[in-house]
């Protein structure tokens, strides 16, 4: 090469060295033939074997199907993927940083591929911030009521402080930072697992909205409408980088209307507990959560003892009073997050999320003892009654909710057979005994 050509070659080489975008050329099987430094900078931390011999291998952990995509690409040349966003985490343990790479892969011809890889972490972050502003604007557009905007991490813990949180909830910065969003709800209204469920549902559907009692720092209650919206991309694979917006609005003035509507469609008119249809709906949601992530889930089936005798002896009004009394006892005994329903006649069911068989049995025992110790006043008469209860819990052998109901029913039958006014838990031995 003559001197000027050599110099131009060197300048070109340096141009490629300095290019602020990753470029790599490979053979059809991914073997790297040319690669520039920025590409190596981005790929080296990902490379499972510490080498950059093959692009598919280097990207295996983050785009496992790249090789397949290339194989499946029908045309002789063209774009195999265009600015595919690839979330990655790099760095030493304990100081991991998340990055988002954009990968464009071109098929040049039958033998050659060329990829462009760039770090789009910043622009993705800007998009996320934009989405957060949009959430704000939406909130403003929805109504004139005040709201608190809370940013949450992937555990549902409060990340940042802003004065709107104090305005709505009365909590101070020290009280909320790093705490779970469950702190905004009454003590037994939402479990940590339920928090994660709601985040997951927000991931899946774009948002998770609920309305119900919330609690302020001074323990005062208000009727809150709480929207959780994800701030990350739906296909963002790195769960520990997920972030959410929680918007809490005090809609206490809407509570009565909302409650009345809710009651009309989902509650049993006599007892105020959920009706059978609403219970089945709630169960379906719980079963989806269980299927996604099995965790303790128990069921208590409750039946008023000798209810027919009460009706016959004291009249139907007394029977209704007993059912209302029983429902009130259930509401007082179980947690707000438990699903309480009148299943029909004198039969009641309670679904207890995040509760083991033992835990459910203890609560059911408490209810049993409470009701046995009280009398219902009906027309000047004190009516005493007892209940029997059967307890069962989800496990891998329980195929679906009907099967769980079946087990609780078998346990309830055992409690009745054992003399009533007692709680029995389902045991394998009951299965054969319950054939009746």
């Amino acid at each position, binding site marked *: 090469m003559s001197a000027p050509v050599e110099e131009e070659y060197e300048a070109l080489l340096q141009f490629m060295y300095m290019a602020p975008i990753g470029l790599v050329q490979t053979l059809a099987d991914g073997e790297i033939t040319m690669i520039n430094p920025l590409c190596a900078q981005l790929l080296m*931390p990902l490379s499972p074997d510490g080498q950059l011999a093959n692009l598919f291998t280097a990207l295996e952990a983050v785009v496992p199907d790249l090789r397949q995509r290339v194989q499946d690409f029908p045309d002789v040349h063209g774009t195999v993927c265009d600015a595919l966003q690839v979330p990655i985490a790099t760095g030493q343990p304990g100081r991991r940083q998340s990055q988002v790479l954009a990968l464009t892969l071109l098929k040049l011809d039958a033998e050659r591929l060329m990829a462009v890889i760039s770090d789009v972490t910043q622009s993705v972050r800007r998009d996320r911030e934009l989405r957060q502003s949009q959430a704000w604007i939406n909130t403003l557009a929805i109504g004139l009521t005040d709201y608190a905007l809370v940013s949450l991490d992937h555990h549902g813990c409060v990340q940042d402080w802003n004065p709107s949180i104090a305005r709505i909830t009365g909590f101070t910065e020290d009280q909320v930072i790093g705490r779970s969003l469950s702190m905004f709800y009454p003590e037994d209204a939402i479990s940590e697992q339920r928090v994660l469920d709601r985040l997951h549902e927000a991931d899946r559907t774009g948002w998770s909205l609920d309305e119900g009692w919330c609690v302020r720092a001074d323990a005062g209650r208000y009727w809150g409408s709480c929207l959780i919206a994800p701030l990350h991309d739906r296909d963002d694979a790195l769960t520990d980088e997920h972030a959410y917006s929680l918007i809490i609005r005090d809609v206490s003035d809407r509570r009565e209307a909302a409650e009345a509507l809710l009651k009309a469609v989902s509650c049993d008119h006599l007892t105020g507990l959920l009706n059978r249809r609403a219970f089945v709906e709630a169960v379906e949601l719980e079963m989806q959560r269980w299927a996604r992530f099995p965790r303790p889930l128990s069921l208590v089936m409750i039946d008023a003892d000798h209810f027919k005798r009460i009706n016959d002896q004291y009249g139907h009004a007394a029977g209704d009073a007993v059912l209302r009394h029983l429902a009130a006892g259930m509401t007082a005994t179980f947690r707000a997050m438990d699903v309480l329903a009148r299943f029909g006649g004198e039969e009641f069911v309670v679904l207890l999320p995040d509760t083991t068989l033992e835990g459910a049995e203890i609560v059911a025992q408490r209810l049993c003892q409470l009701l046995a110790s009280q009398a219902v006043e009906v027309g000047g008469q004190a009516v005493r009654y007892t209940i029997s209860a059967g307890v069962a819990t989800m496990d891998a052998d329980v195929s679906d909710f009907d099967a769980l109901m079946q087990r609780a029913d078998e346990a309830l039958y055992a409690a009745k057979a054992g003399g009533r006014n007692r709680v029995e838990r389902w045991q394998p031995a009951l299965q054969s005994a319950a054939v009746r």
Partner: protein
Amino acid sequence: MNTEQTLSFSNAALFDYLDRASDAELDSLDFGVIGMDDATQVRRYNRFESAAAGLSPDRVIGHALFTVVAPCMNNFMVAQRFEDAQQDGSVLDDTIDYVLTLRMRPVKVKLRLLARPGSDLRYVLVHRQT
């Protein structure tokens, strides 16, 4: 030729030698030497490295190592180690397997990263793996 030329890539006393060595002495080494100052600007660039990268020293010296000369090292595996050592005022002497993109070809190398408090220069040594 002086005896120090026999110093190998992995010699424990290499830092002292590099700090004292003349340009000619650095050029005689059979591995790449890049010396940078505390602002990551390249101050020394030996013949071996120049030939391997295809860049003459005047294109490199005075430029920022991690953005202009060797962006491929600008990640937690290399650049971060220097930053950490600088921040902590600690001695850095790590040897890692790496891949450089010499003339756009992926080349397996061993990098030895050297830094110590009080020294004017910090070094990246490049040893081609065979």
